[in-house]
């Protein structure tokens, strides 16, 4: 599809973008429209695709000096365009949902575990420990971030709701996971087994 990419080198793209060469910018915008049409596969109309491509073009202009040349320029620009487009679509999809309401939402505990016996008991013990860890180890903000992410709220939306950067949200989520891992390890649960435990059976060290 994107024959444009085959006819320009990275150096030509970078030089053209830096110089704000009209023909180069038009080619890039056109390329980004085609990329986004594939990337979004029907999730947005043509008008939105063109808007996202324009926003991406502006971002590429701002960031062109950070392009390291370790990929094709068009792949790098497409990644930026996709980040913008998905971010906008997620914000639109979650536009009427507030973090406060999401956190307050009660969800009835369902009976996922059907098995009985030693395995079920071990898993029950682990989940009880995890609940206790959530209650005692996490700050209010960490709890909010962990819960919102578990319930599918995109990081960009959480970031906007909490007035923090996406990097800060990720850091707090990471710190929360580390705290909970340490809490479980201190109670004798082997982290190596947690992955297996999360889909099946629990064992203590």
């Amino acid at each position, binding site marked *: 599809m994107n024959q444009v990419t085959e006819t320009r080198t990275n150096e030509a793209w970078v030089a053209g973008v830096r110089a704000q060469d009209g023909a180069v910018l038009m080619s890039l915008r056109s390329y980004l429209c085609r990329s986004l049409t594939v990337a979004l596969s029907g999730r947005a109309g043509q008008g939105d695709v063109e808007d996202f491509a324009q926003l991406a073009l502006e971002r590429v202009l701002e960031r062109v000096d950070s392009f390291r040349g370790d990929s094709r320029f068009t792949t790098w620009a497409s990644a930026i365009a996709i980040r913008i487009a998905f971010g906008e679509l997620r914000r639109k999809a979650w536009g009427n949902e507030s973090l406060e309401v999401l956190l307050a939402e009660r969800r009835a505990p369902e009976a996922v575990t059907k098995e009985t016996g030693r395995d079920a008991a071990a898993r029950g013990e682990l989940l009880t420990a995890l609940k206790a860890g959530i209650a005692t180890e996490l700050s209010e903000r960490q709890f909010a971030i962990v819960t919102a992410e578990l319930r599918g709220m995109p990081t960009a939306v959480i970031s906007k709701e909490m007035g923090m950067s996406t990097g800060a949200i990720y*850091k707090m989520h990471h710190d929360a996971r580390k705290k909970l891992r340490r809490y479980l390890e201190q109670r004798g649960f082997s982290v190596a087994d947690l992955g297996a435990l999360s889909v099946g059976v629990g064992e203590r060290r």
Partner: protein
Amino acid sequence: MIETEQELLDLLAAIADTRDVEIDCDAFLDRVAPLAEQLRQEVALSDAFYAEAHHLRICSGCREEFDALLAVLRGE
């Protein structure tokens, strides 16, 4: 409240895959283009992308965007 067993199991899976040092979504974006080009060629991922591969497992948003980028590359 985190009340359902499924939510707890999902959190447990994320805890199990937690590393002491991780990259965030912005750092991932900086490296996603060469990663996607390498995967598009269906060659084994080099160790240089260890942190990015881990981020893909942890972050559903970046995974969704990465899949979209791969679709673009594969459509060329």
